[in-house]
């Protein structure tokens, strides 16, 4: 695909035509929520980037350059990060204004060649990690055949390109528990939640990176493991869970990033009341965000609708750590137990 793109450009230059490329439009009016797939998809609209237009020249050149970088990475079996891309461009006189701009060019390259960037070895900075009894076999060059068990490091093992592309070999886990925050992830490991609940624990560090989302989907689809999602009881926590379930508009051009059967397991607004959790008032931004997601098609089901209403009612939010008022083990011993029973029941 990368070669086809380059050849197309060369051909146009040879014919003394201003090179142009066509890609799916990623404007708001071309992003639809596909209810069947339970994720965002791009519509039929396309945009044309043409060298005839001065304002397109630089981004188009950056796109062709990104294609060249991707082809080099693939040829040399190397990986790179979005941050690298940003800095590499500076050396070529193609500087990006900021990181989001260089990320955007990579996103465009994805939508032009219709492959996620992971396929051409460009990854985000990784912070996400996993812990639990899962054995994988690497497929990355130089590590082929080597195996790794995710109980080997009590800090958890980073989910990077090597892990994301590894083959699942063996597991006795029967579920996946996804946690937003590092401290809570450590608590779950220390309290042996993975053993007691037979679970693989994944820490997302805020919004889950795409490699992590891909891994969660693979665990769900390939190993048929149910997925439970824990985040703070605020609109931002809700959305971290929702993106894992239904994907983001940002990645509407990338299929197979979503896990539609994953379940939001807390913390609910109703939990704040039920457990009398220490809480703080929702601020203006929280309220605004809550109003936005109330109208979002991804939130038009239960328990989202009821819980969003509850948030508006109590006007409060709470962090996962709030359960610590009942002792450090309460969240694993009592709360998790109860919630999993409810959801599995």
């Amino acid at each position, binding site marked *: 695909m990368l070669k086809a793109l380059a050849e197309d450009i060369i051909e146009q230059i040879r014919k*003394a035509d201003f090179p142009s490329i066509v890609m799916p439009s990623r404007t708001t009016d071309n992003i639809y929520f596909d209810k069947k797939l339970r994720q965002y998809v791009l519509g039929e609209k396309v945009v044309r980037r043409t060298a005839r237009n001065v304002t397109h020249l630089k981004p188009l050149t950056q796109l062709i350059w990104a294609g060249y970088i991707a082809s080099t990475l693939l040829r040399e079996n190397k990986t790179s990060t979005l941050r690298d891309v940003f800095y590499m461009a500076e050396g070529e006189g193609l500087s990006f204004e900021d990181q989001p701009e260089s990320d955007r060019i990579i996103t465009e390259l994805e939508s032009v060649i219709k492959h996620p960037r992971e396929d051409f070895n460009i990854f985000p900075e990784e912070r996400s990690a996993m812990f639990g009894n899962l054995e994988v076999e690497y497929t990355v060059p130089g590590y082929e055949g080597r195996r790794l068990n995710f109980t080997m490091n009590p800090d958890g093992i980073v989910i990077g390109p090597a892990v994301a592309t590894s083959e699942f070999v063996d597991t006795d886990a029967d579920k996946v528990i996804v946690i937003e925050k590092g401290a809570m992830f450590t608590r779950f490991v220390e309290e042996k939640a993975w053993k007691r609940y037979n679970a693989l624990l994944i820490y997302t560090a805020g919004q889950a990176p795409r490699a992590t989302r891909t891994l969660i989907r693979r665990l769900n689809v390939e190993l048929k493991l149910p997925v439970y999602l824990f985040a703070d009881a605020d609109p931002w926590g809700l959305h971290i869970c929702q993106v894992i379930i239904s994907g983001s508009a940002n990645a509407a051009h990338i299929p197979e990033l979503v896990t539609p059967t994953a379940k939001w397991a807390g913390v609910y607004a109703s939990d704040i009341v039920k457990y009398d959790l220490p809480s703080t008032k929702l601020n203006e931004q929280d309220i605004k965000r809550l109003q936005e997601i109330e109208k979002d098609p991804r939130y038009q089901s239960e328990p989202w609708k009821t819980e969003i209403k509850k948030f508006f009612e109590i006007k409060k939010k709470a962090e996962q750590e709030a359960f610590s008022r009942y002792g450090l083990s309460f969240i694993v011993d009592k709360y998790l137990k109860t919630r999993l029973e409810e959801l599995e029941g």
Partner: protein
Amino acid sequence: MLSVECASCPEGSHHPKYQVEVLRQLAETFREISPADFFYRNRDVAGFSNPSRAVYSTVRELVENSLDACETRGILPDIFIKISSLQGTSEVSQVLKVLVSDNGSGIPPQYVPQAFGQVLFGSKYVLRQMRGTFGLGGKMAYLYGQITTNTPLRIVTSTGSKVYEFSLMIDIQRNRPKIVYQKELRRLKKWRGTLVEFSIEGDYYRASPKIVEYLRQTAMVAPYANITFIDIEGRLIRFTRATNLMPKSPKETLPHPHGIDVENLQRIIELSKERNMQQFLTKNFHRVGKATAKLFLNEVKIDPRKDPRKLSHEEIVGLARALRSFEGFLPPDASCLSPLGESLLEAGIRKELQPEFVAVESRRPSAYSGHPFIVEVGIAYGGKVQQGGASLYRFANRIPLLYDESSDVSWKVVNQLMNWKRYNVDLAVAPLAIIVHICSTKIPYKTVGKEYVADRPEIEREIMNAMRDVARRLSLFLSKRLSYEREKRRFDVFERYLPKMAKYAASTVGLKNAPSVKPLLVKASKLSTEMVEGGKEKEVLEGSVAS
């Protein structure tokens, strides 16, 4: 009568309503003391108020006399000025030797003593646009020199044949020249012109920036002159002639009745030889013919046969008023004026300011209160014009006005009346110079200092119109340049990115030689701006959709 008005007020104040009264007092003063004595006592009024101003005024008056001496005869001026220090006295004041020479008409030897040593010599009631007024300023300088150093004035002059040297002093009390010596010089080569040399006490160091600025601005409106200045340190500053064209010499004109006051009228009556009113009017006033005179005299009920010298004081006052207000007189014609003209003004601006763009506008003659005037405005932009806001250069009868800028009518037009935004000019930052030249037989200065022009509505309107005109042309130039720069910037983008695009595409498929983008660059240079910039893609940034 400018010189009298000049002396009527202390410097820095103005009160025209008292003018008549002051004039009367003044007339009496003249009877009691000599004019030289009067000016000695009132030296502040002519710009000799302090040691630095005195030096500046001296240079200015002498240079103006020299330029006038050349221009009235159509001679391309070569002016030489040298200031040297005789004694390095105190810090604020030195004894200076000032030498100014020109290649002008020269002065016949019999007139030299009076011309240099007697104040108000040769005042004639004819009007013509000149720099100096009745040569008073120059005499003021000699007088000041004599007062401060008590040394004689040396004059060397020739009208083209014999060369004479004079050494003079002024008998201040009697207003008479005192000849120290007088001799004919052996002529080494053919020479014509006048050289004046005398001593003066003053503060050169504080005056020097103003002097240089004065000479620079003079050179701007006299691009046909060579001006050479050797300063006290021996440094040479030279303003070189840029054109051999000179403005046409103004004609002498009689005063227009609309500009007459009582004092004027009395003096004209005293000097006239006519013995009846009708002839008196037609022979002594501008634009008054037989028919007009009859009509006027009939209107004011004065017998055309009456002897003007028999008019009573009351009758003279009434006549002056009637002359000023009668609407039957034709407006003054401008043949007595000598505007620079657009090409000379432009040449001067280009020479001294070296701008990227110049526009000049010479308005048609107009008149206020019986005084004809012409306004000329130039605008200079970019190039070597000083950055960081507009500079205003004001000229009156080709004299640069350097003081009290913010009280001048031109300043008001530039800073208060003009809407520069309309012309895409930001006055605070633009590399802009605005040149306003007003020429008139009588410049309406606000004060005796003669440094700023009053905001007469007629003059203000003319300046405004001229300035709008040049501003419009500047605006056109700016928008053209802007679109040129836009084109250039646009093409730069093609030049920058197309080769890169070709290179990376080639590298991606392992091609050694990138395809040539030359044909595309040729095409790009032909694309019109609209075609290229139209239809901007509406791209939504990441994150503006629900994330």
